[in-house]
């Protein structure tokens, strides 16, 4: 890798088959995201310091991303729209700007 980041190149996808597959995956992503948002307060409070994954509109919890993905994929192998997230141990005000 060079010292300076390589510029990002943008490409529009036009292949109908690829677009159809992407659309189906987006719909699964939307369902899992909506499920998490509907249960956010309870989940975020209860599972601090844990990795969570929503797949098939079901919650999975583990200590590491690898473990939680294994649980989610075992239960819902067809769901490629899973929502993986780590809940920080502490509830803090955040300043990002990396």
């Amino acid at each position: 890798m060079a010292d300076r980041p390589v510029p990002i190149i943008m490409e529009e996808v036009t292949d109908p088959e690829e677009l159809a597959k992407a659309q189906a995956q987006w719909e699964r992503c939307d369902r899992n995201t909506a499920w998490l948002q509907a249960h956010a307060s309870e989940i975020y409070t209860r599972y601090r310091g844990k990795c969570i994954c929503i797949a098939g509109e079901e919650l999975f919890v583990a200590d590491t991303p690898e473990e939680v993905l294994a649980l989610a994929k075992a239960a819902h192998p067809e769901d490629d729209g899973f929502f993986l997230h780590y809940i920080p141990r502490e509830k803090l005000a955040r300043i990002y700007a990396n």
Partner: protein
Amino acid sequence: MQINGEWLLCDDGIIRPVIRGHIRDGHGLWIHAPFLVDTGADRTVFSAPVLAALTLQPSIALERLSGVGGIVSSVVVETQIRFRREAGRGTVVFHGQYAAVTEREALDMSVLGRDSTGLFAVVVDQSGNIVCLLGQQHRYTIEQR
């Protein structure tokens, strides 16, 4: 081109501007990932859980990442991110080298930085419930009521 995001409730009870995308993993599959729209971030950065899920071969990051908390441990991966365009008008793919933090507490959500958002006009309007990237044929106007 218009790429829409949303205001999502985060673990601390704060609503933040997020654009959800897919990142291509080491097997050629697409992994769902939400990105915080951070107009102050120089670079797009993946969170540690996302990095783990991608199973990509990382390179050593020669450019270090720092935030308010100081310098964080990071790597670089070469991959693609795709976003969905407005009203079912397909997808757009960003090819690039992206940084990723390696410690979970360093970043709770991947960040969409100016290396990506700089290709667009960025609208982040909580009162109007709008998060979007605008480019090419799409523009915005400011009106006085």
